[in-house]
């Protein structure tokens, strides 16, 4: 089979689910009788510029702080000889698994109990909660990349310099791409965040899009307002996508450990343990509030939404894993145009959910596609478009570890593509695909921005319910729903860890 056919089909799918909705954003204000004036308003009115400026300052601050926290944490937890690194890494990942606005509620809950909730409102509070929610992205990318550096590169340097210099001159520069990618993702995710700024009363640009759409039902203006965010995402992601293939890492990876000796060992351990305690503290408070309230009543309020969330996230994760595994194969085996596939899935993830949501509405909200638009399928399409990258990354990581000679050997014995996929690749990458499924589930489960815009009547999910209650519910009920949200996400993540750990042991 021509090696261009499979990537071409994948690009077509990505165009259909992601790029086509985005292109409607660009042109629909004109096509539907709008005018250039709408575009100009998005870029030039005082209010828009003011909000855009705020969003940029906010996202830059969060991105810098997340880089400053996530990079050293990633190095410490992946490469040093400090004890309990895996446990700490799991704890420090938790804030990413919980929706940012649930994190905001958790911090509000604990500060409220201490009579300090006032300090959480406004710019510093939003920066704090978003940094808390997104630093794990930089941490996890730093961990993955620092482990993938060929060990000889550091060993060669160790013959001439101490570890401190080797980290500064060899390790960190080789990780530069991952750190920048992580910070760019944090920037874009912060830029698109709606829940936290709304809860903490800090007006930002994406809320403008949301209010044009949901308060004034003005789709043209919402679409035009999305364009600056789309442009910012493109400006950031295009150079990074270009650098993806030039990162000097190998899959051989490293087992070299950075020895932490003397007083530094106890200092760093104390800092990490304190950090882990601070990460767990708001969730403990949230669960405490949930326990002291009326859990039965909260469960009654949230039960249906919880079931819908589980059904949608489970279906979304399954589609993402299936599609992502094929895309991952194309990327890992370096098919033609695989760089484009990587760049597009990353862009779709990095785009603010509101932008993607408005684009999908623009494309599908027509009489002829009403059957699709008014069904939960529209939410699933939003999930797949936004989170397909998770399935792709998991599958790429798994397939890249399998030498292509295994497939070639099977081909020589007459195996076709389907037999190779089911007989060789699937059994060997099963653990990665299952990890990808759990990860995709958690992200679909926690999604708010896309679901809020796309949900058909009667299909509100747990995050949407939480957002509704945040505006006009009792604090105890809000804390209870946020607690259910956090507990469900953590249960799924823990199940994922246990399953993949079990599969790894079983295989070896």
């Amino acid at each position: 089979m021509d090696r261009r056919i499979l990537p071409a089909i994948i690009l077509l799918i990505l165009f259909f689910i992601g790029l086509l909705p985005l292109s409607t954003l660009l042109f629909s204000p004109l096509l539907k009788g709008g005018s250039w004036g709408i575009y100009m308003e998005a870029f030039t009115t005082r209010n828009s510029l003011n909000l855009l400026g705020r969003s940029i300052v906010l996202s830059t601050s969060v991105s810098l702080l997340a880089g400053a926290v996530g990079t050293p944490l990633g190095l410490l937890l992946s490469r040093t000889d400090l004890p309990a690194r895996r446990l700490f890494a799991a704890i420090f990942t938790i804030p990413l698994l919980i929706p940012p606005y649930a994190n905001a509620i958790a911090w509000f809950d604990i500060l409220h109990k201490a009579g300090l909730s006032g300090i959480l409102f406004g710019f510093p509070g939003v920066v704090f909660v978003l940094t808390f929610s997104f630093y794990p992205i930089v941490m996890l990318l730093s961990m993955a990349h620092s482990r993938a550096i060929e060990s000889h590169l550091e060993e060669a340097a160790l013959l001439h310099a101490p570890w401190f210099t080797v980290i500064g001159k060899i390790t960190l520069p080789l990780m530069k791409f991952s750190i920048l990618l992580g910070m760019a993702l944090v920037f874009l995710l912060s830029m698109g965040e709606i829940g936290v700024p709304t809860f903490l009363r800090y007006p930002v640009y994406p809320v403008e899009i949301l209010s044009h759409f949901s308060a004034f039902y003005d789709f043209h203006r919402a679409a035009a307002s999305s364009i600056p965010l789309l442009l910012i995402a493109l400006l950031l992601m295009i150079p990074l996508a270009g650098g993806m293939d030039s990162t000097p890492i190998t899959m051989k990876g490293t087992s070299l450990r950075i020895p932490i000796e003397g007083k530094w060992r106890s200092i760093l351990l104390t800092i990490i343990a304190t950090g882990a305690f601070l990460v767990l503290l708001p969730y403990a408070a949230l669960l405490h509030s949930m326990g002291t309230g009326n859990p039965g009543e909260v469960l009654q309020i949230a039960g249906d939404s919880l079931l819908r969330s589980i059904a949608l996230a489970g279906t979304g994760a399954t589609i993402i894993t299936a599609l992502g595994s094929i895309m991952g194969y194309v990327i890992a085996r370096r098919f033609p145009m695989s760089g484009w596939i990587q760049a597009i899935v990353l862009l779709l993830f990095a785009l603010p959910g509101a932008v993607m949501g408005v684009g999908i509405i623009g494309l599908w909200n027509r009489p002829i596609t009403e059957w699709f638009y008014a069904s939960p399928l529209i939410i699933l399409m939003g999930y797949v478009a936004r989170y397909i990258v998770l399935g792709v990354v998991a599958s790429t990581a798994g397939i890249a570890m399998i030498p292509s000679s295994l497939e070639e050997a099977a081909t020589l014995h007459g195996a076709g593509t389907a037999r190779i996929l089911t007989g060789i690749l699937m059994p060997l990458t099963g653990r990665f695909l299952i990890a990808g499924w759990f990860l995709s589930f958690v992200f679909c489960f926690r999604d708010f921005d896309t679901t809020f815009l796309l949900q058909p009547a009667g299909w509100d999910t747990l995050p949407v319910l939480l957002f509704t209650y945040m505006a006009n519910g009792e604090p105890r009920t809000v804390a209870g729903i946020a607690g259910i949200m956090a507990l469900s996400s953590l249960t799924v993540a823990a199940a994922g860890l246990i399953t993949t750990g079990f599969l790894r042991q079983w295989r070896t």
Partner: protein
Amino acid sequence: MAHIELKEVSRYYGERPAVMNLTLSIARGERLVLFGPSGCGKTTVLRLIAGLIPPDSGEIWIDGRLASRNEKILMKPHERNASMVFQDLALWPHMTVRENLQFALRFRKIPPGERENRIRETLRTMGMEEYADVKPSHLSGGQQQRVAIARALITRPRILLLDEPFSSLDLETAYRIRSEILKLQKELKFTLIHVTHDRDEALHMADRVAFMRNGKVVKMSGVEEAGAYFEELKKRVQGD
């Protein structure tokens, strides 16, 4: 006094022994070749001497100083005055050729002017002067090999460790670079420990050959005796 001494050194990777109760003494300025099949522990010996890994048991002495003992590295790798050329060369991809060499000199007490002179001189010796500002990925395999050797030699090390660095080169280039190293070794008188499983390479580079199998030295011999032993091994294999 021996330059490098390994006393009853063992090193395991999990349950698998890589080096077992190895005792070895290497004189200053000697050229020792570690010869043996893949997985017999040759590279592990180099890494133990470089201080990149500690022994699980036993002692390693360098220049009369205890360098490693029983799971502890007592002299850090950069304090051992050793350089190494890795099998995959390990050139830092984000640095130019000049920067690769500059990094190696970073912690040596050499005045900045002298540093630049030494970089120029080393690059000239290796025929790489015109590639000083090029990144390794833009060089051919042979050129990269020369840069790796230049980086190893620029510090004027007392110990040079070569981990099969010629295995990916064609015969002619490999022979030429080996000869250059031998010339430099005679000039600078560093102790050379060379890992290979190539018979001709072993005979070309060695004063002594240590034949290794299953983490142990099974025979130690001079070059002539090694040549005869190789013939004997060949006949034995053909007889099988």
